[in-house]
């Protein structure tokens, strides 16, 4: 505490903390589990997670190319870094799987590791989850939550003072099925009833949007249900619904006229592994390679005998169990990575929302740690499963590495 630098740092941090808390708090984060689709390239949905995955691939290829372009026996610069990482991976492979198998497993092991690692660390860059396309929200394209953004010069900005709007949809008038079938309703065919119900829900959503906008920005009418009461018979009626949707559209138009917009942000970049497709794809690749190595090492029928054997009832059941375990790996691989990364992203979003500055920093450090650990676990488990796959049943016990129990 005697050091003036320390005192200055602490005071500065506290001032930042306070300023952030008072002036820079953004709206409550809107958590989306699905990756937002930015555009459709034919049948292919270009998701933001796919964009960042492609970016990670690009970065890795460029770095790999630069590092290995002019190789010298005495390494320098970027070669040093890349080489030390690769050599550590190589040594681990050889130590775990032996010289011959280690060399075979190494490329897949290393690719899994650095791909996940770099993607996870790239996700901590500032433009992730912050810059994106605006997806407008209305009664038709409804979401439970949205943000009112200020629009200037074509760019929509979420200002610190803005809050997340939550739409409370009252669906109780729409539960037609729950009501006892009256004589008049029973004559309505089921298709008609489904249409009625979806209309009703649309109307209720429109009501929620209009009410929320009125409460927040004083646009539109205070009580859309009352305004449209004369338009139709009530919830479920087509004309009544149309009136309500019209009301909501008017409110949104008024909001737009005042230079604002209701919507959510679909970020251009989002952490690759927060989309379940990415961990699943890597898990599938890992499984494909493990089975491929197992088959090539033992032969097709001998490998199948690991799972399907009738030599004894016990072996039969053990084989079936191993087969199920083989499939379960896919799921555990996927959800371990997906869950960790999604949780990390949500943690960071929430921490930045609660305390915009300073406090979020340790969590960034934590996420760096989690990012590299998850990458290592994924790659290491692949390696271990590969070692198990190429070992025969007879020598199973001897070769089983300790890491299996340590990492499960």
């Amino acid at each position, binding site marked *: 505490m005697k050091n003036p630098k320390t005192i200055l740092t602490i005071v500065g941090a506290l001032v930042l903390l306070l300023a952030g808390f008072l002036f820079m708090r953004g709206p409550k984060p809107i958590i989306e*589990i*699905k*990756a937002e689709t930015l555009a459709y390239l034919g*049948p*292919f*949905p270009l*998701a933001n*997670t*796919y964009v960042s*995955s*492609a970016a990670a*691939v690009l970065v*890795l*290829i460029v770095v*790999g*190319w630069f*590092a*290995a372009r002019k*190789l010298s*026996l005495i390494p320098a610069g970027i070669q040093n870094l*890349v*080489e030390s990482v*690769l*050599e550590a991976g*190589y040594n681990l492979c050889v130590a775990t799987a032996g010289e011959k198998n280690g*060399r075979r497993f*190494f*490329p*897949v092991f*290393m*690719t899994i590791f650095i*791909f996940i690692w770099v993607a996870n660390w790239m996700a901590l860059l500032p433009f992730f989850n912050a810059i994106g396309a605006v997806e407008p929200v209305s009664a038709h394209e409804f979401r439970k939550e949205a943000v009112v953004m200020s629009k200037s010069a074509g760019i929509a900005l979420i200002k610190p003072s803005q809050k997340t709007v939550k739409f409370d949809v009252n669906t109780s008038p729409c539960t037609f099925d729950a009501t006892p079938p009256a004589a008049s309703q029973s004559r309505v065919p089921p298709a008609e009833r489904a249409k009625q119900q979806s209309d009703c829900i649309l109307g209720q959503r429109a009501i929620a949007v209009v009410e929320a906008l009125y409460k927040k920005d004083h646009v539109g009418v205070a009580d859309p249900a009352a305004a449209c009461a004369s338009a139709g018979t009530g919830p479920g009626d087509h004309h009544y619904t149309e009136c309500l949707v019209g009301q909501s559209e008017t409110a949104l138009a008024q909001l737009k006229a005042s230079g604002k917009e209701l919507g959510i942000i679909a970020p251009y970049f989002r952490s690759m592994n927060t*989309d*379940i*497709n*990415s961990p*699943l*794809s*890597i898990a*599938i*690749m890992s499984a494909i390679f493990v089975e491929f190595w197992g088959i090539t090492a033992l032969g097709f029928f001998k490998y199948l005998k690991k799972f399907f054997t009738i030599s004894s009832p016990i072996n039969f059941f053990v084989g079936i169990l191993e087969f199920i375990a083989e499939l379960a790996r896919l799921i555990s691989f996927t959800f371990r990575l997906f869950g960790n990364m999604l949780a990390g992203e949500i943690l960071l979003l929430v921490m930045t929302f609660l305390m915009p500055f300073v406090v979020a920093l340790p969590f960034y450090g934590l996420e760096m740690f989690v990012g590299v650990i998850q990458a290592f676990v994924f790659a290491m488990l692949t390696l271990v499963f590969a070692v198990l796959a190429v070992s025969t049943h007879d020598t199973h016990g001897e070769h089983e590495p300790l890491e299996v129990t340590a990492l499960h």
Partner: protein
Amino acid sequence: MLILGIADLGINLPLLVGQLVNFTILLVVLRLVAYGPLMKMLDGRRERIRESLSAAEEMRTKAAESDRQVHEQIEAARREGQALVAQAQEISQRIQADARAQAQTDAEALIARARNEIQLERDSAIAELRKEFADTAIAAAEKVINASLDRGQHRRLIDEALAESRFKGAV
């Protein structure tokens, strides 16, 4: 229900295939661009290290060998030097002894000659003295008896008397 849940999580076949393709591209390109050359380089370096280690080992044994040889040579030279010194000492001792013996014999010869000469001197001196004494005795006796006896008879008498006496030196 399960299918619905999966859809809510966002599993999407085209996207999944896209990610698989992404991973495959990365794997193949890195394999070609980075892993292959780097592994070759690492193998080369490992080989180089092994070679230089074995070369160093060889050098070490060589150095030890030459060290041993040098030691051996030094030892041999030392032994040779010692032998030379010993030989020189021996020679010098012999020379010394020879010189001493020579000196002794020389001295003895010298003494013997001197003694011989002294003997000769004495003998001649004694003969001289005896002759003088005989002459004196004859002259004295001539004076006493005065010509009764001739000179020849006298000499014979005196010689007989001297031969009976202690003087036996050469005349």
